[in-house]
């Protein structure tokens, strides 16, 4: 079987977001593989290591710097990578067209992608890709087993955890807790340098962004920060409850 993982490169969660001229400015910031995508990589590698005859392919769409993210997942153990080169910022619905087309070209059986992107805060890529391929989807997957063509596992629904069964091909979106992603080892980092990253031009996919981003601003709500010293716990608790009653009108 062939497994495709969509890899995104995002701002490290520890970094501050900067805005320049109404847009998020990533220059000089630490960029990393979206953690959500690392769960997908780890899961694909575990499927392969579990004895399934599987080839694991990573796909990334973006500028040249995104090859750093592909090298990272190649060092984790991904077999080869495809880089669709573009400077365009694509929304999830547009991006799904490329993922679906690569999945067709590569004859893929299973696609793994992140449940929520750490930059666009989007949940849409997995489902949109599944629709384009007319495949089923499982979102927010917390456990996954593959046996031949049968996928089973559990995922999170609105207010419950559900167990599921579905047949390949399918799209799975990941979440924290699915597994514990491995770190690349030094020999694997060396080996990864020799692995193939095939570069494809964007033009063949005929995508145009469906949305325009017209501005961005940092969200900081001014907070009052009335912080009490709790050495005298009883007095501080009384005072806090009084403040909440008098000033917020939320507490009765």
């Amino acid at each position, binding site marked *: 079987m062939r497994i495709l993982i969509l890899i995104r490169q995002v701002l490290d*969660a520890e970094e501050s977001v900067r805005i320049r001229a109404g847009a*998020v400015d990533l220059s000089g910031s630490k960029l990393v593989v979206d953690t959500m995508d690392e769960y997908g990589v780890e899961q694909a590698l575990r499927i392969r290591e579990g004895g399934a005859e599987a080839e694991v392919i990573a796909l990334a769409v973006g500028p040249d710097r995104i090859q750093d993210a592909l090298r990272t997942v190649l060092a984790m153990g991904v077999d080869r990578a495809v880089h669709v080169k573009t400077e365009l910022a694509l*929304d*999830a*619905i547009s991006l*799904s067209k490329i993922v679906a087309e690569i999945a067709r070209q590569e004859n893929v059986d299973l696609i793994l992608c992140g*449940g*929520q992107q750490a*930059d666009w*805060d989007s*949940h*849409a*890529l997995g*489902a*949109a890709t*599944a*629709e*384009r391929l007319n495949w089923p*989807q*499982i*979102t*927010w997957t917390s456990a996954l087993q593959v046996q031949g063509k049968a996928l*089973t596992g559990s995922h*999170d*629904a*609105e*207010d419950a*955890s*559900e*167990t*599921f069964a*579905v047949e390949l091909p399918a799209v799975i979106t990941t*979440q*924290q*807790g699915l597994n514990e992603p491995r770190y690349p080892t030094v020999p694997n980092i060396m080996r990864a340098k020799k692995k193939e990253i095939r570069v494809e031009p964007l033009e063949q996919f005929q995508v145009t962004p*469906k*949305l*325009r*981003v*017209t501005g*961005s601003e*940092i*969200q900081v*709500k001014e*907070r*009052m*920060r*009335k*912080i*009490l*010293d*709790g050495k005298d*716990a009883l007095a*501080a*608790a*009384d005072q*806090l409850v009084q403040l*909440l009653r008098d000033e*917020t009108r*939320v507490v009765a």
Partner: protein
Amino acid sequence: MILIVAEYASGKLSKSTYEMATCARQLGKEGPVTALVLGAGIASIANEAALLADQVLVADNPALAQYDPELWSAAVAQIAKEGEAHTVLISGSKSGRAFSPRVAVRLDAPLLEDVISVKADGNKLSAERYTYLARVMEKIETDAPVVVVTVKQGAFSAATPGTNAVEQFDADVTLPQPRLRITGRSAAQSARVALSEADIVVAGGRGVGSAEGFTALVEGLADALGGAVGATRAIVDAGWRPYSEQVGQTGKTVQPKMYIAVGISGAVQHLSGMNKSQYIVAINKDADAPIFKVADYGIVGDVNQIVPAMIAALRK
């Protein structure tokens, strides 16, 4: 027309449906606000929707007894096409955000995800939404003739239902064969108000010490306030609390009137799930914890002493 896909639970419309009704009325686009109710045995829900919309479409079909993103998206896209909807509003809930992308692809429409505002200006539709783990507000726009919008829960006020029920129409839908089998379900049972609908959320982190500490402090305070209970990822991973209570990037996003963080340090992934709360209250022993930077009120001190004292003060 503006199509609202009604969301409901336990035989009643969810708050999100009332919020979508407000969103539709404020949109500035012409056409009747049409509520679409999908499911099986949904007459009472359709009746409730009839007090909210200009007309109601009811797809009452045994095949829709259980939510399935493929079936839901096929039905919504078909009805949107037949009714020539220019705007499809879907809840920003977990399931809404899971089937809406399929609707957008079927309609060849852009998807405006989890918007906090949306406004039409002629043929242009502008919206605002949070990005970068809710640290940035982004403005987006499109000129597309048909758009799919998911509406962030809690971003719009709930519409007040009218007194005259509008007309209901049966909608026939052609559904694909289900491929996904749900083989089991474990819902967390709770007598408390739902996390995403609560005015007050009391949440606990590692600082509560143990699962028992959580029960005494966090659940105790929540019950004294009539609030819901939330948890950080760390203590969900530790098995102290069910995932359904997790607040943050990989859990729920909440926007209550008051969020009380007990023993929570305030990692960015957690903050992204609650930093839009109207008031944030923090109780933590570490004065340097990031949670205090986003707090309106707080106490630096021992949660084991302070929280029981707060519960006592509230019961006075």
